[in-house]
Each structure stands twice: as structure tokens, then as C-alpha cells.
């Protein structure tokens, strides 16, 4: 259901965006609104995934879990507080968003494949949600392409954040779970960043509509 809805929704979203781009009919605020809705959904999914995973997580895993600074996207310089974030320009913000999203394209595939064999009681649920994550991510990425076209050229810049983790997330059960959890936590944070930046952009674009913020 969500799968189909996601696909159709993404197609529709893309079509709408392209049409908007062609005709220039849809204002940016609407586009940003739709984009932020997508990102909101993305982050919510990742949050629930984390909770599902934590339900049966070995305590030892928390101890030896890698630090978040080990995320492959940590090299990207993002604002750390509100003042910094509000000082970033729109195009830069969008560029950050797009970079982050782009950085997760491959790791999500890894997550998806490893979710199929995850030694976890909620494996099927997790697997489904990973699927949804992928779809939402894809549709958001497509929408952002259109958005960036309406913004300053700086929005087109996408920082490359390659993922070096490979396809293998571990051999034994513990390491598998730990690595899966770690990867998911990195994604959760990054999705929150994406969501926050898009909502900042939305508020900025909707100056005439204060109720949007």
C-alpha cells in the first residue's frame, strides 16, 4: 500500500514539479511544502525503525556501538545551532539537503539488502520500512531536483559523500545488529537535518503566509 502509494506519489510529485517548472505555475512555497512533508515522513519512518530495532537490541551493543562521528556524512559541514542554521542561504541549505540525500542513496540499498537477513524478530517490519524509506527518499530527491532549478545556482552543488562501508555489515549476529543500528542512527540524524533545513526554507519562502510556519 505504502509502496504503491509511494511510487505513484513520487511520480505524481515529479510530474507536478516538472509541470510547474515548465509552466511556472506552482509557487516555490508549495513545492517546499510538499518537499518538507516528504522529509517529515522520511524522518518519522526512520524513528520508528530505530524503536523497532531497539526493542530487541543487545545491551552490549550500545556500549560498543561506533560513535556517530563515524557516520560517512559527518564530513559534511552543517550548522550546529540555530544561529548558524539561520545564517545559511537558501541555496546553500538546499545544496546541503541534496548532498545529504544523495549520500544516502547507496547506504539505503545496503540497509535494504541486509534487512532481509537481519537476525531480529521484527525483521519483516523493518524490511518493509526500509523499502518505504527508499521510495520516499527517491521521490524527495526527484522533487529537489526541480526545486533546485528554481533557486540560485548554488543549489545545484552536491557534495559527494561516498559510503565506504561496502555491502557487508557484519558476520555475526551482534555485529550485524550493531552495524545495522549504527547505519540507521546515522540516517535518522541526517533525515532530521534534511527535514529541518527544508522547513526553514519553507518558512522563508512563505513570508506571505505566516501560518505556514
Amino acid at each position, binding site marked *: 500500500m505504502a509502496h504503491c502509494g509511494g511510487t505513484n506519489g513520487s511520480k505524481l510529485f515529479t510530474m507536478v514539479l516538472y509541470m510547474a517548472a515548465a509552466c511556472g505555475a506552482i509557487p516555490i512555497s508549495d513545492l517546499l511544502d510538499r518537499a518538507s512533508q516528504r522529509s517529515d515522513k522520511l524522518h518519522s519512518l526512520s524513528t520508528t525503525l530505530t524503536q523497532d530495532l531497539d526493542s530487541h537490541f543487545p545491551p552490549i551493543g550500545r556500549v560498543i556501538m561506533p*560513535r556517530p562521528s563515524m557516520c560517512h556524512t559527518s564530513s559534511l559541514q552543517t550548522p550546529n545551532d*540555530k544561529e548558524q542554521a539561520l545564517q545559511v542561504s537558501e541555496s546553500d541549505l538546499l545544496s546541503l539537503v541534496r548532498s545529504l540525500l544523495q549520500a544516502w542513496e547507496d547506504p539505503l540499498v545496503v540497509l535494504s539488502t541486509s534487512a532481509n537477513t537481519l537476525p531480529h524478530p521484527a525483521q519483516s517490519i523493518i524490511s518493509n520500512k526500509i523499502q518505504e524509506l527508499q521510495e520516499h527518499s527517491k521521490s524527495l530527491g526527484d522533487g529537489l531536483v526541480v526545486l533546485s532549478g528554481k533557486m540560485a545556482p548554488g543549489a545545484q552543488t552536491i557534495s559527494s559523500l561516498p559510503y565506504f562501508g561496502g555491502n557487508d555489515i557484519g558476520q555475526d549476529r551482534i555485529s550485524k545488529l550493531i552495524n545495522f543500528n549504527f547505519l540507521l542512527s546515522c540516517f535518522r540524524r541526517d533525515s*532530521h537535518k534534511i527535514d*529541518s533545513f527544508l*522547513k526553514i526554507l519553507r518558512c522563508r519562502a512563505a513570508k506571505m503566509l505566516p501560518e505556514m*510556519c
Partner: protein
Amino acid sequence: MRKVILLLLLLCFTAHTRGKLHSPPAKPGLTSCRSPEKETFTCWWKPGSDGGLPTTHALYYRKESSETVYECPDYHTAGENSCFFNKNDTSIWVNYNITVVATNALGRAFSDPVEIDVVYIVKPNPPEKVTVTVMEDKGWPFLRVSWEPPHKADTRSGWITLIYELRVKLEEEIDWEMHLAGQQKMFNIFSLRSGGKYLVEVRCKPDHGFWSEWSSTSYIKVPDYFHREKSTWILITVFSTFTFLILMWLLHMNRHNLKHCILPPVPGPKIKGFDKQLLKNGKSNQIFSALVVPDFPPATSSNYEDFQVEYLEVYVRREQELVLEESKDLHNSCLKSESSTSDCDSGRGSCDSHTLLMAKCREAKEGERQTDRECSPMRTEAQRRLKDWEEEALNYAHAGIVSLEMSSGRVKTWPSVFSPLPRYSSSPLDQQSSLQMAKQLSLSTSSYLTQPGHSTKEALGQSYWDLCLSSKQPHLLNPPTPVCRELQAHSDVNISSIGHKRAPAGPRSPALHTTEYVEVQRVDNKDTLLLQPVVQGCGRMGGCFQMPHGEVYSKVKGVDSDNVLLLQREGMGEDSCHKSCTVSTTQKPSGCIYTAVPVRDEMATMANGYVDTATMCTLHTC
């Protein structure tokens, strides 16, 4: 030495009196860390037992990217056992590793480290400036609740996105009614109870965070709008009363119709001369005398409908298949209730009634039996008589009977009804004989059965002999015989048509299309039927034949010496008939035209045996 021992004892004593043992502090625990606006955050801990010694707590944290351990910058702002991180010390999207350490004289205790990210622990303050007002929408009140986000949360820049929820309840209720308001800062509540006191509370939540606490309760009292409801009810009541009154009035106006619908009236008797009042009040003599129609037999021109006329369908047959069925027939015919042409409500209807018929039949039967008893050879006599009668009839057919043709002759006799008429009874004997005659005739006529196939070749029609036996004595048939109305029903006796069998000298019975009315003037002792043209007799009783509508019938005006039947060409229906009827017997009606046409062999007969004037011609001896 002694001082040391004393000191030790003192210490022991002190320790003993205190009742405690000093120990290092127990492990504290971090209870929660919260950020109200994603810019600052506070952590609270719960200290363990202090081990009997003054214990201090310290919070140390470490950010994810560095190993530097920092201590809590502010222990006081947030209250006891808390640590407040201000904006400068707060970094978002950065993991904090926080530990609380409890220290006392004997040792220290470390709490479990907690990893937090500020963005995940956002719990805003409740919404502020919640206002509730009562407003009106087309006369109906509703509550408008409006609020503001907590002042610390920066929603303007989009840094934090809040969604709101409010709850409402009446003062006396227990359960709250929840409403999700989304991102808007205003909400309307409808369907209020008039005069109720409402409690309203609002709370908020960031897009990915925790719900705030409920705001302080706002009280609002809804004014009474019962009077508006009341006016509506008044209107409704007035309308319904109006409608009800109108309905009642309509019913009252139509009560007669309703009464007829629901309780249809019992049809009263329609016997002419029957007076209900008389029945109630009067004596039997009066009743019965009233029943006697004073002008019957009709002497004046009256409605033909009211008269019952006997007519005799006669046809001549070679074989006389009489007899056995006669009684049966009579019985059968008596049982039959003929109602084809008579309506139940006319005067004749009552006469046509089954019971009356039965009574008549019974009488007839008695008479029959009587006659049987008298003469068993009555039948033969009847046959003889019939034969004679036939001959007579034929003779008279010569004389002027145009055509007698019947396929299914139906005799409708009504002997018994009219026989007791006193006026026309010259003598009881006559009466008796007339009755006898009537019965005999009926008998004889009844002896003739329907022979449908018998005469189909020739004629389809029937000729009717109007036999006014009822109105007068057979012997005393007056010249101006009244015109008798054909009466249908009673004893249906089918007589084969006379005209079929060519009587020795009888004319070939032609196909007749009309029925020729010839009035039987009298029947003499020899059972000879003396005919009289009907039209003459019109005048006396004033009655005329009732002509079936739409057909032209001729009345026989007269029979002249040459045995020519003089017919009267008439117009339609009764009017002309009436006209003709008013003329005296001797006179020729001025308005009547008559034609005397030689009888031809071929006569046009109409289906019912009436003679068509167009083709009519007088019979002659052939």
C-alpha cells in the same frame, strides 16, 4: 593514651547515636533531559542515597567529536538536581554523553552515561495566551479558541514547527473532547449546550518531539440561547396546529363522502310504490295497496322501463320435442336468474329477483303439478294446444305476422305476477282460466327447448310475441292493448322458432333482422292468438315499446283486410313512439308513416328478431 581512648569512644558513641553508617554515595541516575526550543536543554538527575555524608553531585558531559569532559555550566537555573545548558553550550545534531557523579567524603558514585541528541528531546512549553470567546454563527453560538506558541519556541523562522491540540469539556463532565488543530493557532468549537460552562486547554508538540504540558484551563460560559430554540418550537407548533385544523375541516366537509366510502349505504328497495315510511308506520293494507301500481297496466305514456312485458317467442317446429324437459326447463329456467339486461335497481330488478322467481316457479310448478294431476295427458293436450297455437300463429302469421324466426327462442313469461291484478279480472274464473292459460302457455312454451341448431339455418333473430298476459285476461284482451315492455328474465324458455318449419301454409320464415312487435289481442277459447298491431294500443296505456336504442323498429300499425300488415315507420326510440302512442286507435297517427309492403319471401331479420321496416312487407298467403 587516655585521650586517644576517650576520643575513640566519643567517635564510636557519636556514630552509634547517629545510627548510621557512613558509606560512599549511591549511584545517582539521570532522569531526563529536555529541550524546550531546540536551543537549550536541561538535564535532571535523581540522587541516590548519600551514604550518610554530605554528598555533592556533579554532571559531566562529553561531546561526540571530542574527548574533552566538561562539567555542567549551570546547576541552579533549572532547580535542584539539574543542569542547564544554555545556548552557547548547546550544540545540535551532536551527541552528548552525560554522566552524573555523586561525591561524598567516603567516595563517589557514577551514574550510567546517557547519550542524547538535543533534537530528539524537544518538549516545548505549553501554548500561551489561550483565549476563548463565544461567537455567533447565524444565531447559533460557537466557541473560538485562540492561542500563541510558547514564547521561547521560534516558529517564525521555521526552526521549530509546532502542531497543537486542544481539549474541551463541560464543567460537570469527566471526559474531555479532543481536537487536533494542526499548525493553526485558532480553533472553533460548535454544538454547544445552551448555558453551559466549558473548560478549554491547549497543548503543542514539535514535529518530532514530545507533547507539551496542557496550558492553564480557560473557563467560558455559553449564554442561554434557549429562547431561540423555543421560538422555533413555537413556530412548529403553530404550523402543525394549522395543518391539523385544515385537515379536520376538510374531513368535516367531506364527511358524507367518507361515510359513503367507509360505510356504503345499503341500497333501498326500488319497487315502485314501495314506501319505506309506510312500511315502518303503515298498515299492511296500505303497503300492499301502495305496491300496486295504480297505473298498471300502463294507460298513460310512462317509462317503458317500468313495465314488465311478457313476450312469447314462438316458432314452429315440425318435431315437437316437448315434454320431458318442460318441467325441468321450467325449473331450470326458474333457477336461472336472468340479469343480462335488467339492472338490479330498476323496478324490474326486484321482480327479477331470484326469490320471487322461485316463488313464481313454485306456483308455476304447482300449477304444473295441478295440471298434471288434472290431466296427465295435459302434455299431449299441450302439444295439441301448441300445435293449434302454432297453426293459429301461422294463421296469424299469414295475417300479418311478418316473420317469426327464432333461433333460440326465449320466452319470458311472467304469469303469476300480474295475474292477481284485480282490475283486469272480470271474474275469478276468468282469472283462474287466465292463469291457467298463462301457465299452460308457459308450459307449452316451456316445452320448447332451445334448439340452437335447429333454426340456425334460417334465422338468427327472434321474434317476440308480446304477450300481455299479465295485464289482462286472456279473454279480455282489449284492443288497445298496452304496449308491454319486453321483459327479460323469469322463466327463460327457449322455443324453437316457428318460422322455421314451414307450416303448411306458413310462409317461409325469412331471415329477420328485426323483431316485429305484435300485440296479442286476445286468445280465444280455441287458443287462438289474436293479434293486434301494437301501435294502436299505444294510446291506452301510454306505453310504448321500448326500442333498443339505435335500431329502427317498426310497429305494426294495422292489419288490413287483405292480411297485409301495415307497418309504421318510425323514428328513433321513444319519442316518436310516444308520439304515436298518443294517437287513438282508430286514428292514424299523423306523425307516423306507415308503409304497407307486400310480404316477400325474404325478410331481413335483424339479429334480435326485429323486423326491419326497410325490408318489411306484409305477409301474404303463399
